[in-house]
């Protein structure tokens, strides 16, 4: 485990922001840390970076206790917390050079980073004039500068356009698959995490509601048969009379828990025979988005 926490709890005054969190982040994974705004994601990341003092529980990173091995651990972590911290009066390159100087990293690495985050052309432009996406990319470049083993990114795709999002996603996947890094990335967008994460943790009101691999998350998710008919309510009532369970009905479609292909054919025949014209019928994996909402709202 690269990150493991035990009963991690944090209070802001009387408000509990993080409640006995037991995170397990395996090596070589992209761990998607999901939760709605204000769920405690940023607080958790700040605890992991030792920016906030751990009040209860313990944090182990690279199997070492965080408090007593702070510098050793931090030297192997790159981070981007909330909006990137950039000196706006310096150019993008100067920002990187400045950090390289602080961390005693050879300046040649700066050019590699500029190349990696596609900022070569804008290297000598003041960071104050950068677009949001460029700032975000520079922030990622800064985080990667020391070639860390673990990357902690807090909503790295915030404010990026679709192209930027894809670029960041591909960069992260490349880092994990080709350079054996571990990435811990927080987001409030499930669709985003779904596309790159290997492991997922879902947090709401400071509590971890789900943790596991993306396959485990998908297994939670029951497939449905989606049927499009003219009068969905009548069709649903008809099916119920025939002892068939209906999961959901709306104006255009009705949903029935999926069993196998044969069941789909039978449903189709049954409806058509009884005067309900079926426009379309198909198997549908329940949207992870809905699952996410269901998990976070039930809590």
């Amino acid at each position, binding site marked *: 485990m690269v990150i493991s926490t035990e009963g991690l709890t944090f209070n802001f005054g009387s408000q509990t922001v993080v409640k006995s969190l037991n995170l397990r982040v395996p090596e070589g994974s992209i761990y998607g840390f999901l939760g709605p705004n204000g769920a405690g994601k940023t607080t958790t990341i700040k605890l992991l970076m030792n*920016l906030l003092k751990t009040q209860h529980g313990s944090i182990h990173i690279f199997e070492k206790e965080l408090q007593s091995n702070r510098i050793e651990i931090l030297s192997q972590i790159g981070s981007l917390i909330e909006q990137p911290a950039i*000196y*706006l009066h310096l150019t993008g390159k100067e920002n990187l050079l400045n950090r390289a100087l602080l961390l005693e990293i050879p300046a040649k690495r700066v050019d590699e980073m500029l190349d990696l985050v596609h900022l070569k052309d804008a290297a000598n432009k003041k960071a104050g004039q950068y677009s949001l996406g460029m700032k975000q990319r520079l922030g990622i470049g800064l985080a990667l500068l020391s070639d860390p083993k673990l990357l902690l990114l807090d909503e790295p795709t915030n404010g990026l356009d679709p192209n930027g999002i894809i670029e960041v996603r591909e960069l992260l996947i490349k880092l994990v698959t080709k350079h054996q890094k571990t990435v811990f990335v927080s987001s409030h967008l499930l669709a985003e995490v779904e596309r790159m994460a290997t492991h997922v943790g879902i947090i709401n009101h400071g509590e971890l509601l789900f943790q596991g691999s993306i396959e485990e998350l998908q297994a939670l998710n029951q497939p449905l048969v989606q049927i499009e008919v003219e009068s969905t309510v009548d069709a649903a009532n008809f099916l119920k009379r025939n002892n068939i369970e209906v999961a959901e009905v709306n104006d255009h479609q009705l949903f029935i828990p999926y069993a196998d292909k044969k069941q789909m054919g039978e449903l189709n025949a049954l409806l058509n025979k009884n005067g309900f014209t079926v426009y379309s019928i198909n198997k549908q994996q329940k949207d992870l988005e809905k699952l996410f909402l269901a998990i976070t709202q039930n809590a």
Partner: protein
Amino acid sequence: MAFWSAIILPFLLCALVSVGFFITKSQNLLQTPPMFLWIEYSAVILAPMGSLILPMLVVFVAYSVNSIEHKADTWKTLFSLPISKLSVYAAKYLYAFFLIFLCLALFVLFTVGFGNLLGTVRPQLQFGQYSMAGLLAKLYFKLFLSSLGILSIQFLLSLLFRDFLKPMGIGFICVITGIILAGNSWHYAYLFPYSHPMITIKTLTDGNHHSISTPAGLPVIEVVLFTKEVFVSLVVSVIVFISGYFIVLKKSVK
């Protein structure tokens, strides 16, 4: 910005005073012996320095060294780098320390430089016949020492508060209070760090310094470096610096 203000301020002030000196006073001072000429000249710069400009400069430098990190929101990054918190804190402090030192050193340089320039431009003013450099250096060094107490306090305030008003406002009020206290020669003013530069200047004009008549009849001015206000300033500076470190250590970064 703090860096350039530390360089431009002494230059501008010395230049302005020299020009003013050249235009207004040069007629009256033609007969003045070179030593008094120098004293008169440097006093014009020293008086506002000690009372108002130096304390405000310290407040400003302490603010701007920290505000750059507040503005760019980089405290969290600095404290998440594999660098000990003491290094970050001490490096910041030393930079502010260096800026104040640089500024005062430049004051010495420019005062002497412009004085000699005046002497060359108008040879009737006998600037060239007396050198005050050593004395000025010692005096400004004392000013530097006496401002360290303020520096530590202001540095910590600016580090803790991210807005402009709190550290600057508190600093300004304290500077004014310091001037009033020292100006009224309050007996315990030496305990208040913001009064120290003013006291340093005052002891000069009060004639508290040792004047020993030389055979030539000219007084020799001696600056006693370690007076009690300088001592208090140093002690305050060290105590605040150390306690500031423990505050930074305990503080959670938002």
